[in-house]
C-alpha cells in the first residue's frame, strides 16, 4: 500500500508522482508575450523612479520596461543584466513586494504595483532562451583574481572582473556552483535547473575558471591565494547553522532546514525524498518558509512554523507568509522551543510563549507541545571559520565601502560580509561593486 500524508514516521512518496510534479512546478508561471505587454503598459516611466532606488542593484526599471513596451525584450534584458548579472535568478527569488514593487507608485495609487519581477523574468528569459550573452570581454589585462565562493556575490564579482579583462578563478566548496541559488532556495522558485543554466550562461563571458570541491581553510588557504593572485574576493556565505539552545537537539530527525532544502534541490526524484507526517519548523525567515512549504508539498500532513516574535518581525515577507498559509502551513508566532522530546527519534517539541521585557524577549510559563517526527531548524546561519587576520564586525567579515576588508588585496561581499540584507540581489550588488573596486586598484 502506498504511503499517504497520514503514514506515520518519516517516509517518502506520500503523494502520487503527478501531484508531486504539480506541487513543485513554477510557483509563478512566466508571463507570455501578451501578458508582458499588458503588464509593461502599466509603467508610468517615473522621474528618478522609486523602484530604481528600492533595487539593491539599482536596475533602471522604467527603462527596461519601456524597452519591453517598445518590443525589445533583449534590449530590456541587457539593461537589467548590466546592473545585475543574475537578473534572471533575482526575477524569481527577489522579495519584490518589499523592494521595487513596494516602491512602485502604482502601489500607492491602486495597491497594485507594476509586475516588475515578472517583467524582469520575461526579459531575461527571452534573452537567455536565445542563448545570447550580451557582454564581451575587454582586452586581457594579465591580472588574476581569486574568487572564493560561487554563490551570487562570487559569480557577480567574477563576471564583472572577467568583463574588465582580468582572469578569474572561482573556488567553491560544493560540487556545483551557484551557492544558495543551487542549494538554498525552494525548488518551485527556480525550476528546470535554472541556477545551473544561469551559471553556464554567465560563464560565456570567458576568462573564468571554476574549481569545485575547494573549501577555504582546507583545500585552499587565504595566504596561498594572496600569494598566487593579484586580488582575492571572499563570497563564502554563511556555512554555520545556529543552534536552538533547547534541550534535546540530539534526537534523530532534528536537522538544519538548509540541509533539508539542499537535499530536496539535489534530488533527482522527489518521490524518493523522505518527509515527516508532523513537521515543525523553527524560525521566521525565508529558509523557514521554504522548508515548511516544501515539506507540505512533499505530503506532510501537518507542518507548523513556530517563530518567537511577532509576524511583522519575521524576516520572511508578508507574501512569503501568505504563501505558506495558502499551502496549508500553520504559523505560530510568539513562542520559542524549550525542549525536544522523544527517544532515539524526536516525537515532539515543547514551546513556551514569549513576551517582550526590558532585557529583551523572555519565556513565559505558558507552554504548549506540538507532535513532531521531524524538526527543522531555521533560526539563522553564521560565518563558519573566517580566515585569521580578517577583522570581524559582529559575526561577519568587516568591510568598508565596496567590500574592502581589513586586509589589503582582499575584498568580501554577500552574506559573509557586514552590512546589507542577506538577499541574493544584495549579494550581486556587493560582488559587482567589489569587482569595480578591485579593477580600479589593479589598474590604478
Amino acid at each position, binding site marked *: 500500500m502506498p504511503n499517504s500524508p497520514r503514514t506515520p514516521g518519516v517516509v517518502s512518496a506520500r503523494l502520487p508522482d503527478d501531484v508531486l510534479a504539480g506541487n513543485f512546478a513554477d510557483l509563478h508561471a512566466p508571463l507570455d508575450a501578451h501578458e508582458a505587454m*499588458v503588464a509593461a503598459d502599466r509603467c508610468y516611466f517615473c522621474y528618478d523612479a522609486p523602484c530604481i532606488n528600492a533595487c539593491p542593484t539599482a536596475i533602471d526599471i522604467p527603462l527596461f520596461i519601456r524597452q519591453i513596451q517598445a518590443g525589445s525584450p533583449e534590449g530590456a534584458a541587457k539593461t537589467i543584466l548590466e546592473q545585475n548579472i543574475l537578473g534572471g535568478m533575482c526575477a524569481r527569488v527577489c522579495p519584490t513586494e518589499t523592494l521595487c514593487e513596494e516602491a512602485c*507608485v502604482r502601489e*500607492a495609487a491602486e495597491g497594485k504595483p507594476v509586475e516588475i519581477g515578472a517583467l524582469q523574468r520575461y526579459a531575461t528569459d527571452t534573452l537567455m532562451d536565445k542563448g545570447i550573452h550580451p557582454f564581451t570581454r575587454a582586452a586581457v589585462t594579465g591580472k588574476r583574481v581569486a574568487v572564493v565562493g560561487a554563490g551570487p556575490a562570487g559569480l557577480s564579482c567574477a563576471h564583472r572582473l572577467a568583463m574588465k579583462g582580468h582572469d578569474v578563478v572561482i573556488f567553491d566548496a560544493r560540487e556545483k556552483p551557484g551557492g544558495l541559488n543551487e542549494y538554498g532556495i525552494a525548488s518551485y522558485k527556480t525550476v528546470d535547473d535554472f541556477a545551473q543554466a544561469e551559471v553556464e550562461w554567465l560563464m560565456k563571458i570567458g576568462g573564468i575558471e571554476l574549481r569545485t570541491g575547494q573549501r577555504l581553510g582546507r583545500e585552499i588557504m587565504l595566504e596561498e591565494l594572496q600569494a598566487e593572485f593579484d586580488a582575492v574576493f571572499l563570497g563564502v556565505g554563511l556555512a554555520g547553522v545556529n543552534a536552538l539552545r533547547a534541550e534535546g537537539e540530539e534526537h534523530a530527525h532534528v536537522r538544519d532546514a538548509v540541509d533539508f532544502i539542499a537535499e530536496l534541490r539535489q534530488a533527482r526524484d522527489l518521490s524518493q525524498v523522505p518527509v515527516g507526517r508532523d513537521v515543525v519548523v523553527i524560525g521566521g525567515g525565508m529558509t523557514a518558509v521554504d522548508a515548511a512549504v516544501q515539506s507540505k508539498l512533499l505530503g506532510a500532513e501537518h507542518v507548523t512554523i513556530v517563530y518567537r516574535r511577532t509576524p511583522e518581525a519575521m524576516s520572511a515577507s508578508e507574501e512569503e507568509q501568505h504563501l505558506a498559509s495558502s499551502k496549508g502551513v500553520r504559523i505560530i508566532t510568539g513562542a520559542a522551543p524549550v525542549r525536544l522530546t522523544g527517544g532515539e527519534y524526536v516525537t515532539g517539541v515543547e514551546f513556551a510563549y514569549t513576551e517582550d521585557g526590558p532585557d529583551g524577549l523572555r519565556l513565559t510559563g505558558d507552554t504548549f507541545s506540538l507532535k513532531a517526527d521531524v524538526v527543522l531548524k531555521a533560526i539563522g546561519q553564521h560565518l563558519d571559520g573566517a580566515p585569521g587576520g580578517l577583522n570581524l564586525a559582529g559575526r561577519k567579515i568587516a568591510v568598508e565601502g565596496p567590500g574592502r576588508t581589513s586586509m589589503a588585496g582582499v575584498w568580501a561581499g554577500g552574506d559573509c560580509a557586514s552590512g546589507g540584507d542577506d538577499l541574493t540581489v544584495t549579494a550581486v550588488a556587493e560582488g559587482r561593486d567589489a569587482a569595480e573596486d578591485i579593477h580600479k586598484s589593479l589598474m590604478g
Partner: protein
Amino acid sequence: MADLTTDFCGIKSPNPFWLASAPPTDKEYNVRRAFEAGWGGVVWKTLGEAGPPIVNVNGPRYGVVYGADRRVLGINNIELITDRPLEVNLEEIARVKKDFPDRAMVVSIMVPCEEQAWREILPRVEDTGCDGIELNFGCPHGMSERGMGSAVGQVPEYIQMVAEWCKAHTDLPVIVKLTPNITDIRYPARAAKAGGADAVSLINTVSSITSVDLDTMSPEPSIDGKGSHGGYCGPAVKPIALNMVAEIARDPETAGMPISGIGGVTTWRDAAEFLALGAGNVQVCTAAMVYGFGIIKELTAGLSGWMDDKGYTSVAQVSGRAVPNVTDWQYLNLNYVAKARIDQEACIKCGRCYAACEDTSHQAIALKPGRVFEVIDEECVACNLCVDVCPVENCITMEPLRAGEIDKRTGRVVEADYANWTTHPNNPAAVKAAE
C-alpha cells in the same frame, strides 16, 4: 428623462447616433443588427454607379495605431465604396427601411462628376424610401485617384456644382460629407451651402500611413509588399474634427447650417462635445468597429443621463452651446492668470510633472525631500503640461488667481478687467484706447 429624438435637416431619428457610411453599414445584415441594437440611423455605405461594381484589395484593408494595452486609438483604411452591385444595395435599403420606419436611413453616394451620372442614380435611390442622401466628397484614397471622393471635396466649385445637381434632381435632403484633407474647412462648407445643400457632415478620414513594417520596409496596411495611403479615423482624429465642426458652426456664412459631427466619437461624452460645438447629431464608425454595436446603450444612456443632470430636455438645446465660447486667440483674456496646484494627498509621487516641467517647460516644479513635488509660483506660466501628464485625475489643477492677487512670476497685480492682444502694449498693431 431627456428626449433624444432628433430632427436633422428634416430627417427624424430616435436618437442622435447614426452609423457613418463605412463597413458597418455595407449590408442589410449589419444594418439590421445595428437597428436591433438601438442605433438611431445609418448612412448606408457609399453606392457607386450601376454596372460592374468596384473591387477591393484582397489583403489587409486596415492599419491601426494602438495606445496602452492595445487600445485602438486610430484605424486607417484603404477600403473603397461598396463593392456589391447597386441593385442589391437598393433592394436591401428598401427592405430595411420598411422594417424600421422610425430610423434614419441616409444613403451615401459617389458617382463621377457628371450631371448625367447623378441624374441617373438619384431617382433610384429615392425609390428605396430612404430619408436623405449624403454626398461622399471625402474618401481620400482610391476613388480620389479616379476624380471622386476627396478629389471633389478639395475643390469648392465642384462641391457647389454637384450639390446643385442633386438639389435639382431629388427632393431628398442633401448632406455633403467633407474631407479634412484641405487647409480651411470653411471654404468647402460655404460651397456646400451655396450649392443648396441642406447640411454638411464631417470629417471624413485623414490621409495617412499608420506604420511601416521594418522588416519588409512596406507601409501598413501592406498589400504584397506595397502600401498606399489610407484614411485615418477613430479617437486620434477627434480633436481635428471638433475644430472643423466649430469652425463651420461659428463662420457667419455657414452658421445655422445643420452639421453631422463625425470623427472619433467613442463615448457619449465625445458626442456631447460635438453637439456642444454645433453638431446636430453625430456619426460613429470606429468605436462600433472596435467594440461592436452594443456601445449604443452606453452612448444613449450616457447622453440622456448627462442631459438630465444638466436640465437639458432635447438634443437641440445642447447643440451649439459651446460655440459662442470658441474664439480667436487674439480675443483670449490675457489678464486671466492661473497657477498649477498639486494635491499632495492625491499625489502618487511618480514625478512625471517634474520631468515634463524641468526638461521641457519652465522649471516651475520643485522636487523636495521625500519626493514632494511643489509648484514654484514665480516660474509657473500655467501651461497645463503637468496636468496633462499626471496619471491621477484632478491631482494637479489649474487655479485662477483672484483679481488683486499678485502674480509672483511677473510681480504684477492680477486685474479684474478683460484685456486681450488687440489692445496689448506689445502688439504693434494694437488699437490705442481713446485719449
